[in-house]
């Protein structure tokens, strides 16, 4: 497995990560090395093996549908890089 820089650029876009053009080559090399390590599992026969998503086979717990949270919007908005009138501010989305 060897990634080229176009693939790396594509992955970075999917992950919404700005990556320096000058670093794409290095990323391609190290990511390829990592993926070669991961590819070792391809040699294993896993016919009839069920996927395991979670270490304990538990059912999702349910609880009564009651209001448990208080209004913490002020505390949350206080953390925002930009907020106004109780809203998070982002660059204009709709022209």
């Amino acid at each position: 497995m060897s990634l080229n820089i176009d693939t790396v650029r594509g992955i970075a876009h999917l992950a919404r990560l700005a990556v320096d053009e000058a670093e794409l080559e290095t990323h391609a090399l190290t990511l390829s090395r990592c993926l070669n390590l991961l590819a070792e599992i391809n040699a294993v026969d896993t016919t009839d093996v069920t996927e395991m998503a979670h270490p304990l086979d538990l059912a999702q717990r349910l609880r009564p549908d009651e209001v448990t949270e208080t209004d913490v919007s002020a505390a949350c908005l206080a953390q925002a890089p930009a907020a106004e009138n109780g809203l998070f501010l982002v660059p204009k989305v709709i022209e």
Partner: protein
Amino acid sequence: MHSLSVAEMAEALAQGQCTSEELTEAFLERIAQFDGALNSLVTVEPERALAQAREADARRRRSAAGPLTGVPMIHKDIFLTAGQRTTCGSRMLGDFVPPFDATIVARCAAAGLVTLGKANMDEFAMGSSNETSHFGPVRNPWDPARVPGGSSGGSAAAVAARLAPLATGSDTGGSIRQPAALCGITGLKPTYGRVSRYGMIAFASSLDQAGVFGRDAQDCALLLEAMAGFDPRDSTSVDRPVPHYAGSLNHPLSGLRIGIPAEFFGAGLDPAVGEAVEAALEVFETLGATLHPVHLPNLGLSVPTYYTLAPAEASSNLSRFDGVRYGHRCEHPANLEDLYKRSRGEGFGAEVKRRIMIGTYVLSAGYYDAYYLKAQRCRRLITEDFRRVFETVDVLAGPTAPEVAFRLGEKTDDPVKMYLSDINTIAVNLAGLPGLSLPAGFVENLPVGLQLIGPHFEEGRLLNMAHQYQRETDWHRRHPTAFA
């Protein structure tokens, strides 16, 4: 005072031989004196700690103190502390002040424990050497040219240098046990679900588990008991009573069957570490336990399996850092996409970006089956190996890490080399089992860790074994001479 065990400290507080304020001052002085050389803490607020100590003393005067009231500790900076900066070792959260406490932070506070500060760590707990922290590497108190292990390297180094008697940590692939081993202290990763993950910043949610560091098993037992238990705020928390861990430390080990997986003693193991571990196992034999060779045939798959699943989960968990609601935001974003990309590109360090990209790749269309689902099947094979061996033995033992602490910079150029240093610990996370590392000797004045692994929810058995071993040995009482 800093050389007392937690049990001794609690006794001194109960007898009125010292106050929590005096204890807290003593540890804050040690932090001021020594942490410049270690960089084990990223946030220390003496006034905040002293206020908690005075409250603990007042509580004692009201006869409302619990067994740990007034004992100082450190929290890994992955646990949210209301009103106190929580960075997760990242520029992304460099000035993030959480509006609420993690459940375990709240439980420790309810027990009257005093928070001295927040421990340095690998960024978002992604690392095995504490070199990925935005706040600089932590140094190993036994040799400052070497790493303390990771990702809970700050917690482990601080306890080893006796800057605090106790610390919390988190363990996704060995992040408590490996630094405990490399720093010569005792560390326990409980069963998945035993300790609440609420307010612990998520890395890989099906693997992450909070745990404890102490100098010995008794100290770990006391802290675990204060932290563990059901939490309705964590959907994976298990509703099951918490045993009195400190009460079962003295059970005799006669008849205990210890399985020795051959795979832990393979080619990558430093022979000197292997010898120390063999000697430790002989101590258990003299205590009446029996040793049984066993096999975990799929253990070799654990590194590629883990480094597929953990980045996959991380890429999803870390998508919450968007530069909009909290955390780092880039300057002058041109549009929303630019805001996301540059905020994340600037806020995350190289290793975190690498894992997000690996995770994104293995989850992407066309690769999901070949990587992600395949790894989930391998996870089942690895887990089944453990289930099978626990039909014939009570516990497993082997080296926590294949070598002693390595030098700073030794593995930073090669992520694969770094990932392989987790070979003995990560299968335990994949299976959700409890694992404990305890000091078991030295190689060239650097600590060696012995790992004990138990069936689900058998933390008490591991602590019992470690305590019995520590009654026969004094490795856990040794301390780095530069931090006398």
